[in-house]
């Protein structure tokens, strides 16, 4: 028997708390891009990756936030950068040309 069935909400407040949990599931679903194979949560981003925007490509690490993607890739190569980097997906697509090696070229970043 599922544990939940062994916990019975008695009063209206308990039912409201239960409903709140169900509501949370729906809120996350609402953020899923429909029709995509990966069912990625979509969010918003500003100039810099905040860790919220996710890797939409079927490349590893699948579904991680972009900051994590960058760290992961960066750690594997020679360009690890332990801070926010400009968002190269939408706002600054030429970031890699301007700054191909973060440790060396970071002074060249002139984004607003």
């Amino acid at each position, binding site marked *: 028997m599922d*544990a*939940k069935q*062994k*916990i*019975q*909400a*008695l*009063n*209206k*407040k*308990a039912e*409201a*708390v*239960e409903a*709140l*949990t169900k509501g949370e599931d729906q809120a996350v679903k609402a953020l899923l891009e429909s029709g995509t194979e990966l069912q990625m949560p979509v969010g918003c981003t500003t100039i810099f990756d905040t860790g919220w925007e996710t890797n939409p490509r079927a490349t590893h690490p699948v579904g991680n936030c972009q900051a994590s993607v960058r760290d992961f890739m960066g750690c594997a190569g020679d360009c690890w950068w332990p801070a926010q980097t400009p968002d190269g997906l939408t706002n600054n697509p030429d970031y890699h040309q301007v700054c191909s090696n973060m440790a060396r070229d970071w002074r060249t970043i002139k984004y607003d």
Partner: protein
Amino acid sequence: MVHEWADHQVFNLDDGAILYDVDLASLFRIDASIQAVLQRWSCQPRVDLNEVAPPDRAVLEDLRDLRLLVPAGSAKVWPPLRCDPTEIPLSTMVLEVAQDCNLRCTYCYAAGGAYGGPARLLDVETARRAARYLVEKSGDNQALTLVLFGGEPLLNMPAVKAAVEEAEEKAAALGKKLLVSLTTNGTLLDAEILGFLRQHRVVVSVSLDGPAELHDANRPDAAGRGSYSRILARLGGLLENSNAAVAARVTLTPAQWSRCEEVFDHLIGLGFHEVGIAPASPISKNLLPDIQQEQVLLESLASMARRFSRLAKEGRILPFSNLVELLSRLHMGQTKAIACGAGYGYLAVDAGGEFYPCHRLAGEKGFAVGTLATGVDADRVRSSLAQLTTGKDKMCQSCWARSLCAGGCHYENHLRENTLGIPPGSSCDFIRRWLQIGIELYAELRHAGADGLLAKLEKRNTC
């Protein structure tokens, strides 16, 4: 993620337990297996769900979903945020239309109705002015309540009529609903008064303490004669012709607490629609109960709860106000950040037009909060409430009943602490045990499938 326990209380049953979230007032019934998991883990100040083995983990995750386990550092703290009383518009005014009474009840906190001063009646113009004040200061409140109180309010029908008519007119002009209620000793009811009460749909409560000998011992007139037979002779007209439920309001002294059920049955037998029983306020040491007397009252109330449960199986509500009120609050899961409305939308106006946070504090000059002439004095409201509640938050912090009680009746606390010199908290244990009776009854009703009956309580609470 690391979680901590939301403050909760477990009430054991034969086959499981009731789980109560102290700050949300949510009630769950859990079986023995869940209770065992709870016992294993609730002694841990912090729980890292990732480190809990599967069978227990699933249960703890469910409890997390139900907000009984919350992210570490996010558990609610007492006291909760509170509004400034001056930001709350008026919703209820208690008007002391007569600070005089034709009875001399033994337990009267208003000293024969006069509240410690000379006997006096509210004049008609002040009554109208007070009624206007209620409506004018009601802000966005759409439902207002005017309570006609005393002493004995029927000693001053001109002021009763003036206040009701003025409040009705002014409320109607703003499209607001007005409920008028009146508490009387019933000795002065006559056909004309009954006609007025009926015409204005006044909700009437009659103070009556039960069978003749008990009532007469408590409620003699100024000459020492009992009042029971006089009231009974006038009661028929009220009960038969009223277009609103008529409640009997009973006050019993500690020595009489074993007779609750008998009193209830007697008054329902007389035709009252509802009966509420209040312990007499300890205006003097001889009305202060000892532990045995409190135990007797709790047993009487528990017995009433069993009767409530039996009758609920037939789909009927036992019209015992104390339980009906408590059950309806538990049903909704209502919580309180403050003990009552005194100073927060609730205002008492005495026969001289002076303001007090509540009717029971009327005449206690140290708690006066303004006058009809000058309006509510915000600083006085704050200082009066501060005087009445200082130190309570700290005590409530460790109490599971805090969001149901929030410190208890200001006046009862004032009597016990300031008049009788008893340390704060002397009624807490009684209050907790009474609330537990209500919680256990509620769980039993819900478990027995009395949902239709509980929905009626919901209606009562929201109207």
